[in-house]
């Protein structure tokens, strides 16, 4: 052996133990104490709830809380939101005028932001004015709940004026947008060019919620700490480290090895793998959205309702549930998902029946079927498998369907209200307000922002409007029921499955409460 080789071996012998001692962090999450370690695909791209970005929504819900909130119910040892019960949150109580057009909220006393400023009616007025001015998500929520003006009456009283009575309004106030900001703090960072301090909000938060942002290193890590002045129960986790780990495979490895306690957005395949692993806890809940294939009702051949019904009969939903969703989720039987009150599956009549589908196609003038491109993207993990398997099923009734991939942004752009120029495409939509009228308004009304394929039925629009503006609960319920019936008969979507929602966490994490926006609330979580 040469002298050089001996030296090399010696250096290697010394370096390896030294390196191992550097890397032996063990399971980080076990020693993290009151810190929650979370791996997500990226860091938030800003903290303005009105300008939602992919990573924004997950974190603004931790910072900005609503004037109202859903009640909670215990079922089988788990806590769920109860959409039938709305209770005060940042607001203590409210009174409504007889005509249902004025609501006056009395704010809870002693609600403070991390900056030490107490919540006032001026904060609520300023926050809604911001959303009205930005004309984005908050303005949309204001619009669907008929809110036209928000005014501070006194430091603790704020008045909302509605253009018509709204069955959605109190539910809509549970949302984080329009977020309620500590306007005293935010105004310090406003400039004449940027009156709402949106630039400051790119890297700062100022809410009255359980957490606030301490620091962010873009693309790497965000750190949140508990609001020391939070009015509610003190959160178990005093600190949350939100680490960007773009690879889904890496995120699951980190959870399995105890490096993090929570991961965002695992795929179903990863979830099924993790369910067999004792080092991971997987919890699930019925989904709030429907995986569907949309048919453009203004384009041939889908302008004929018989063709749309035939498509639904030709679809083997159970096979899609098994083949695409790997046996998870529930077969979709209404435009309103089961977690929303008013869900009525009784009008569903599209069991798999290829013979009936062929007969309907023949009746519509397509005895030999037709050719169609099925557009799909990669926004949702199930799209490609769905496009391929549905195309195969449609062959049985003579429809030659060719799956064609487009980009996610293209799919969204072409389904937007101004365009809606795709004939046949995959999409997943669902409500973030647990209200049947909101769901119908969003997905089924002719001007609904998630009606992406020109479905329009004036009778249905009238029913939605009646339910939305009539304060009588019985009238609302009857209208919602009738609307589901009409929608089912019109069959504008190929209905498939409500995909299950999963969360994957360390085995010692408890307290997860499912929310309709599919984001956990860190304030709910604890160890043990």
């Amino acid at each position: 052996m040469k002298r050089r080789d001996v030296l090399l071996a010696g250096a290697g012998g010394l370096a390896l133990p030294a390196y191992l001692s550097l890397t032996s962090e063990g399971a980080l999450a076990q020693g993290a104490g009151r810190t929650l370690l979370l791996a997500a695909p990226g860091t938030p791209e800003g903290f303005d709830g009105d300008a939602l970005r992919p990573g924004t929504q997950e974190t603004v819900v931790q910072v900005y809380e609503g004037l109202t909130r859903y009640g909670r119910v215990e079922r089988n040892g788990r806590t769920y939101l109860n959409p039938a019960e709305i209770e005060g949150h940042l607001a203590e109580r409210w009174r409504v005028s007889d005509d249902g057009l004025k609501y006056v909220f009395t704010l809870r006393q002693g609600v403070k932001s991390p900056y030490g400023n107490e919540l006032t009616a001026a904060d609520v007025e300023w926050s809604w004015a911001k959303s009205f001015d930005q004309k984005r998500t908050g303005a949309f929520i204001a619009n669907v709940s008929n809110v036209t003006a928000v005014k501070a009456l006194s430091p603790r009283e704020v008045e909302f004026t509605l253009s018509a009575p709204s069955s959605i309004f109190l539910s809509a106030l549970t949302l984080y947008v329009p977020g309620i900001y500590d306007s005293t703090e935010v105004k310090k960072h406003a400039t004449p060019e940027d009156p709402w301090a949106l630039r400051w909000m790119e890297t700062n938060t100022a809410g009255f919620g359980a957490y606030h942002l301490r620091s962010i290193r873009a693309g790497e890590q965000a750190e949140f700490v508990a609001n020391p002045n939070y009015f509610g129960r003190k959160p178990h986790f005093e600190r949350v480290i939100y680490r960007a780990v773009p690879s889904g495979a890496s995120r699951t490895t980190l959870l399995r090895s105890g490096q993090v306690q929570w991961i965002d957005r695992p795929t179903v395949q990863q979830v099924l793998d993790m369910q067999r692993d004792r080092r991971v806890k997987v919890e699930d809940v019925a989904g709030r959205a429907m995986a569907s294939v949309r048919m453009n009702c203004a384009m041939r051949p889908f302008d004929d309702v018989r063709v749309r019904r035939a498509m639904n009969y030709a679809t083997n939903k159970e096979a899609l549930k098994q083949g695409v969703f790997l046996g998870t989720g529930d077969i979709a039987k209404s435009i309103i998902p089961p977690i929303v009150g008013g869900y009525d599956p009784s009008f569903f009549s599209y069991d798999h029946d290829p013979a009936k589908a062929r007969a309907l196609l023949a009746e519509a003038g397509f005895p030999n079927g037709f050719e169609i491109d099925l557009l799909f993207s990669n926004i949702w993990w199930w799209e490609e498998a769905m496009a391929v398997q549905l195309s195969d099923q449609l062959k049985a009734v003579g429809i030659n369907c060719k799956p064609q991939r487009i980009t996610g942004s293209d799919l969204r752009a072409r389904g937007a209200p101004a365009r809606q120029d795709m004939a046949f495409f995959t999409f997943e939509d669902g409500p973030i307000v647990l209200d049947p009228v909101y769901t119908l308004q969003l997905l089924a009304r002719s001007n609904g922002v998630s009606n992406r394929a020109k479905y329009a039925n004036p009778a249905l629009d009238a029913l939605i409007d009646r339910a939305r503006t009539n304060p009588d609960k019985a009238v609302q319920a009857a209208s919602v029921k009738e609307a589901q019936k009409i929608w089912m008969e019109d069959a504008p979507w190929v209905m498939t499955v409500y995909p299950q929602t999963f969360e994957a966490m360390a085995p010692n994490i408890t307290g997860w409460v499912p929310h309709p926006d599919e984001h956990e609330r860190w304030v709910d979580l604890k160890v043990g």
Partner: protein
Amino acid sequence: MRAIGGFLARRALLLVPLLVAVSFLCFMLVRLGGQDPVAMLAGPTATAAEIEMIRGNLALDQPLWAQFLAWLGEVARGDLGRSWVSNRPVLTELLDRAPATLELLLYGVAIGALVGIPVGLKAARRPDGMFDQASRFLSLLGFSTPTYWLGLMALFVFFYLLGWAPPGMGRISLMVEPPPRITGSYMWDALLAGNQEAFASAASQLVLPVLCVAVISAAPIVKQTRAIALEVLASDYIRYARAQGLPPRELRRMVLRNSMVPVVTFVGTELAGLVGTTALIEYVFAWGGLGQFGLNAIIQGDFAVVQGYVLALALFSVIVFVVVDLLVMLLEPRAGARA
């Protein structure tokens, strides 16, 4: 020195049209790629009017040539625009992340070259011998291993199964506060700040991704060095030197010296070419560098960032080639004289 000065001046002059051409190609490819970021920016509840408003704000309603000229004018003033997703200046975003990528790339390619060049030279000494066969097999393996898979496997084996490496979650442990920024490299900044804990964490996080880049870069370097050395060994002057009875040690020095020019050129090409590949390593190890940023921007249709990213890559390649040319001039005085 004057020759070098003249050479650099000519290169700098060439740089401008080159970067404009690259920018133009990139701009057009991005715009004509069919992606529409407006819908994503507008969010799921946007109305047609809002979508049009955002399109107008981003000047996407202008003709393509007007958009390009406006962008070029801003770039000439040192403004690469703002990310449409984060709204932060693209230049700041790129500068923030560049040290992370450079660190990965430079260490990786340096290790790849330090291993690859001697192995290639040794393999060429006895073509088809045991060492040559083994090195060719390993080189082929390195060539044919997909980068993404290599990163995942490295993590699976060295972190998950063996516990020898830290988790692939960025440049520093979750529980360690990064040092104040001086160079942008956590390892060097921690060293400068005298923060032992941060230094240890940053250094250990570097090992696995750097080794992945080293494996990817070493494979072609071995192959290329071997081929170059074989050519040199078959040359008349080596045959003559051998016939003169020059000792093997001197002979090896001669082969090394004569192989260096093409080998250095090749390593430079590798360095420039690997910037793109490193993006996948960054993605797997959550590195937060330029590559991961660029990849994400491509997926999200963040045009301003994609353009800035491609421009940065082009500039990096140009700088690498200038350095390579300077090294060649030092190694090969005739090249200097020609320049």
